């Protein structure tokens, strides 16, 4: 693999490896992905192929059509996007569809029909996002709007008449007979806010503030919006009684602030806070203490049989995993329907039972690869916002997976979260496809060639406008200095040192920080250039 790299002569930059679009690779992998997805749908009930192939054809067509549509959109709009994200997402989605359908066959539900509709819808939404989001930096402009949006989305289920309470958690809204979980979308908007805010204010958080011992505490006003976001997320979720999503948001908050500042202290502080919060919550809320009890004493008969908050679900899931063994029972051969919520929270145990450790390992590998591709995009992209957003979204998926799989395997207390792409639930599927689209958009900017884009023309025009403005300013000040006609553009900007001279970096830093915190309220979009240029 490195032959092409090392054999390139060091003094020939033109011959360096230029990134290739790699859409053909994607198409090839997409075909394997579709084979897996459609194959799984057939294998769960092979008799259906001869008796009533309509369902298999519908789900296969939606999966193939959606996947190929995104592929075509990528070819047109984001040629250099990562070639692995889409096939992996399609595989996972196809496996999920197959398993939900398989559980429907045993329980007589019709969750898979809804899921097929949502799959199609989510893929179309992903296409729209890809089409509109030519440059992911557009999202930076809606930093504060997305904070507002997150708060609204999280509060939506609390609205009487709109919100629905299911299993003691008030997380859903009901529109026209369909339920939707706005919190799933809120996790994306919250990630956008964290990325936008931290990429703008990173230095303020790190540099300004009082120093106590070896730790530099950030000033409260620099970190206040972050805490507001965090409090909204956690507060609403405690009110809505959904522990899983609270852990997810808190984890996202920690990951983002660690990524931005690179300080281990935040993680230590956060984990401590989480443990303290968990302890307090277990003392205050009965449902949390029941959860903890059914985690620690899952196999006690009285805990197993307890009517609300019993451990039956976890234990049945573990039995399912055990009966799966190494190779699994085979798709359609097990009894995953014995576990309650087998097609949403516990879908991982259903896969463990029917595909065994080998199949479940493959699924986990796919998630791992998905997240590493997200992080690869974060490494490759050149702007801070994109880095934070891509890494944050990948981390989001991994944290969610940790909470879910940790829950069903009794590593952590079980909290109701969906398995990305797989669990039955339209809002989760939609949000994961949007995340995929954003990651694809970021990876496109990360991998496309640097200075060959058409942006330079725009730069040039903008530069001319800027130079003109500078010239006008100078004429007004009466100190036009036209002595250096090197090029048509360079003449007028000569000698514009600005009011700040090179009076030493320390004072510069301080004046800069002062100026910034003073003008922060007006500097909302985060993309405006610093004040005081002239």
């Amino acid at each position: 693999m490195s032959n092409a790299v090392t054999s390139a002569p060091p003094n020939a930059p033109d011959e360096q490896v230029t990134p290739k679009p790699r859409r053909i690779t994607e198409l090839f992998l997409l075909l394997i992905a579709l084979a897996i997805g459609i194959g799984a749908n057939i294998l769960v009930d092979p008799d259906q192929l001869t008796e009533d192939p309509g369902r298999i054809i519908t789900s296969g067509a939606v999966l193939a059509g959606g996947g190929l549509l995104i592929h075509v959109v990528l070819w047109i709009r984001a040629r250099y996007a990562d070639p692995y994200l889409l096939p992996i997402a399609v595989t996972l989605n196809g496996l999920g569809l197959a398993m939900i359908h398989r559980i429907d066959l045993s329980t007589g539900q019709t969750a898979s029909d809804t899921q097929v509709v949502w799959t199609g819808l989510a893929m179309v939404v992903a296409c729209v996002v890809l089409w509109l989001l030519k440059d992911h930096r557009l999202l930076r402009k809606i930093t504060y709007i997305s904070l507002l949006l997150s708060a609204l989305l999280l509060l939506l289920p609390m609205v009487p008449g709109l919100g629905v309470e299911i299993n003691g958690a008030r997380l859903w809204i009901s529109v026209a007979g369909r339920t939707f979980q706005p919190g799933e979308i809120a996790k994306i908007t919250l990630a956008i806010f964290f990325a936008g805010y931290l990429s703008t204010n990173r230095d303020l958080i790190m540099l300004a503030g009082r120093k106590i011992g070896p730790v530099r505490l950030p000033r409260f006003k620099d970190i206040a919006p972050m805490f507001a976001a965090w409090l909204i997320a956690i507060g609403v979720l405690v009110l809505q009684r959904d522990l899983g999503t609270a852990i997810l948001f808190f984890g996202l908050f920690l990951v983002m602030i660690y990524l931005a500042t690179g300080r281990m202290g935040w993680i230590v502080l956060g984990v401590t806070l989480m443990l303290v919060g968990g302890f307090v919550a277990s003392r205050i809320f009965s449902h949390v203490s029941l959860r903890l009890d059914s985690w620690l004493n899952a196999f006690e008969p009285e805990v197993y049989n307890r009517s609300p908050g019993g451990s039956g679900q976890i234990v049945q899931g573990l039995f399912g995993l055990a009966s799966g063994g190494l190779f699994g029972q085979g798709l359609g051969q097990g009894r995953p329907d014995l576990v309650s919520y087998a097609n949403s929270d516990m879908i991982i145990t259903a896969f463990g039972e029917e595909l065994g450790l080998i199949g479940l390992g493959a699924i986990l590998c796919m998630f791992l690869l998905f997240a590493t591709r997200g992080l690869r995009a974060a490494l490759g992209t050149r702007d801070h916002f994109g880095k934070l957003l891509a890494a944050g979204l990948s981390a989001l998926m991994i944290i969610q997976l940790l909470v879910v799989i940790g829950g069903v395997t009794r590593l952590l207390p079980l909290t109701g979260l969906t398995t990305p792409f797989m669990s039955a639930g339209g809002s989760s599927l939609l949000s994961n496809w949007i995340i995929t689209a954003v990651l694809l958009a970021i990876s496109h900017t990360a991998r496309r060639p640097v200075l060959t884009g058409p942006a330079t023309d725009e730069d040039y025009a903008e530069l001319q406008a800027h130079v003109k403005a500078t010239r006008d300013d100078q004429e007004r000040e009466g100190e036009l200095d036209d002595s250096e006609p090197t090029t048509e553009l360079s003449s007028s900007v000569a000698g514009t040192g600005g009011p700040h001279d090179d009076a030493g970096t320390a004072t510069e830093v301080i004046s800069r920080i002062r100026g910034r915190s003073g003008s922060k309220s007006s500097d909302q979009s985060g993309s405006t250039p610093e004040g005081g240029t002239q």
Partner: protein
Amino acid sequence: MSELTITLLRFGFLALLWIFIFAVIASQARDLAVGNKARAAVQNARNKRTSARKERPAKQPAANGSGPTTTGGTRHRPRNLMIIEGPLSGSSFQLGSAPVLLGRSNEATVPLEDDYASGRHARLFPQGSRWFLEDLGSTNGTFVQGQKLSRAAAVEPGMQFRVGRTVMELRP
């Protein structure tokens, strides 16, 4: 369906899952070479920097000698912008024939993640065989080899210039 077919399909499906994963990993090997390339580029730059230090005394007189006469050719114009210090340290950008906008702004051709740089800080533009650097009225100024830039100046490869906290240099 016979027992044998079911068993075969069962194991075949597991195999297909892993074939997919290995296909992804195998084709990633080539893609990860991009990261390898970046490291190789940094390594090359380091090697070149150390070797340039040795070679520079020998090279510079030659460059001075031919300096005034090589204004027209574009072939010898440096083609790489290497960031030596600052937040993006170690990365390099390929230069074409278009002017390059340096700055913190989103619109900049080379977006510097440097809080001490202005939005539109400085501009590099090609002329003949050389690149010229000019300050665009930045707050903190642009410095070429420690001297504050007051007007557009030619930048030779190896000359270090500073925008905010970012120190850059042109490479052939």
